[in-house]
């Protein structure tokens, strides 16, 4: 065990970690957005759109992320659509995770009793007011725990982008391993880093959830 190697290569690894964080945040924002769009489309009542979303979801549920990554990285350029590495990675994460996000958002919205929305309408609330006062506060509390899980999945899968040489955490580790021949120490260290960050994130989100669902305690 040569732990000094870790300190020696720490700056290089940290650089990768930065990119991992940036890509993860980007991926989470993009897939949440696309996920919301998917929910809106499947609630639009237009049959063709509903079926389209359904087929897309089924495809994503059956396809491995790595295969999706290769489809975008190798196959799309052959039909004339070319992206750089980082956009390819972001696109993969977005396309892969948005149906899962959509599923969670849809579940949270459906869990709100229709009676409440009807009641809000009878007291003369506008659609915007209903969304802001009735739906979002309740749906948020329901959606945060599963969304946290999915986001953790997204952060973990961003390590796959090292395969198409996006210079993120795992890629930088591979580089360090190639130079030092100390693979076990480095990979174990990186695993601990991921674990620490994701555990903190989980704790923070649990706090956020408790804050958002305060209304349940007083009622």
């Amino acid at each position, binding site marked *: 065990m040569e732990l000094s190697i870790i300190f020696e290569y720490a700056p290089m690894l940290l650089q990768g970690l930065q990119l991992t964080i940036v890509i993860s945040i980007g991926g989470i924002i993009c897939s949440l957005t696309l996920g919301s769009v998917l929910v809106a489309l499947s609630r639009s009542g237009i049959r063709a759109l509903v079926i389209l979303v359904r087929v897309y979801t089924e495809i994503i549920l059956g396809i*491995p992320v790595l295969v999706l990554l290769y489809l975008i990285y*190798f196959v799309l350029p052959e039909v004339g659509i070319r992206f750089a590495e980082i956009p390819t990675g972001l696109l993969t994460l977005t396309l892969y995770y948005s149906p899962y996000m959509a599923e969670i958002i849809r579940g949270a919205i459906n869990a709100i009793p229709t009676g409440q929305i009807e009641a809000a309408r009878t007291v003369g609330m506008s659609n915007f007011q209903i969304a802001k006062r009735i739906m979002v506060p309740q749906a948020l509390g329901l959606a945060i725990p599963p969304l946290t899980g999915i986001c953790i999945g997204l952060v973990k899968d961003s390590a*796959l982008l090292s395969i198409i040489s996006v210079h993120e955490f795992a890629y930088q580790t591979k580089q360090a391993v190639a130079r030092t021949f100390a693979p076990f120490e480095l990979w174990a260290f990186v695993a601990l880093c991921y674990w620490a960050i994701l555990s903190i994130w989980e704790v923070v989100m649990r706090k956020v959830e408790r804050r958002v669902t305060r209304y349940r305690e007083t009622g």
Partner: protein
Amino acid sequence: MFNTELFFNSIPILASAAVVTFKLFVCCVCLSLMFGTLSVMLQLSNNRCGYWLSRTYVSLMRGTPLLVQLFVVFFGLPLLGIKGQAFLAAALAIGLNSGAYTTEILRAGIQNVPVGHLEAATSIGMSRLRTWTRVVFPQAFTVSLPALTNEFTIVLKSTPLASVVAVTELTYAGVIIQARAFSAIEIFLPIAIGYIAIALSFTQLARWLERRLRDFHT
């Protein structure tokens, strides 16, 4: 744009690689169930040490990327004297990873069994082992089945990761052919469709099993 010759030529190679994927999948599922059962027994035992061991295992597996776990196992095995076993490393890593999720699923299933059933079993004189095999496990398994199916679909979708340690499963075979032929669409499109088809048929099979078990229990 679509080279049919390449497509047909690569089918035999892809088919034999699909067999490797299937073997890997079966190994991973068995390991996952094994680790999951062991870890859930530790967690529900009254041993504090075992409880924390199991909790740490679950948290560690859920908090780190599978890719990183795979490399840790792959480079960790030689330190234990096992060298050059890429398939073993991949199966072990995916099995360990999935075992953590299986633990949680089985725990929910077991806690779902009413305490009254346990008490009833004890009062008619069943031994502890018999209570587990006849009362707790069959019920817990039936309740957990949908979640387990989900988890094993994820395991199937994790098997392509074995390609990074050069196990020639379906995806890696695709990468190799692609690198030689300089053409991807004829290879990755069938592979993607193959995975979707396998995942769909697996879910259907599990649905069928679920229905059978439900009829059996009621």
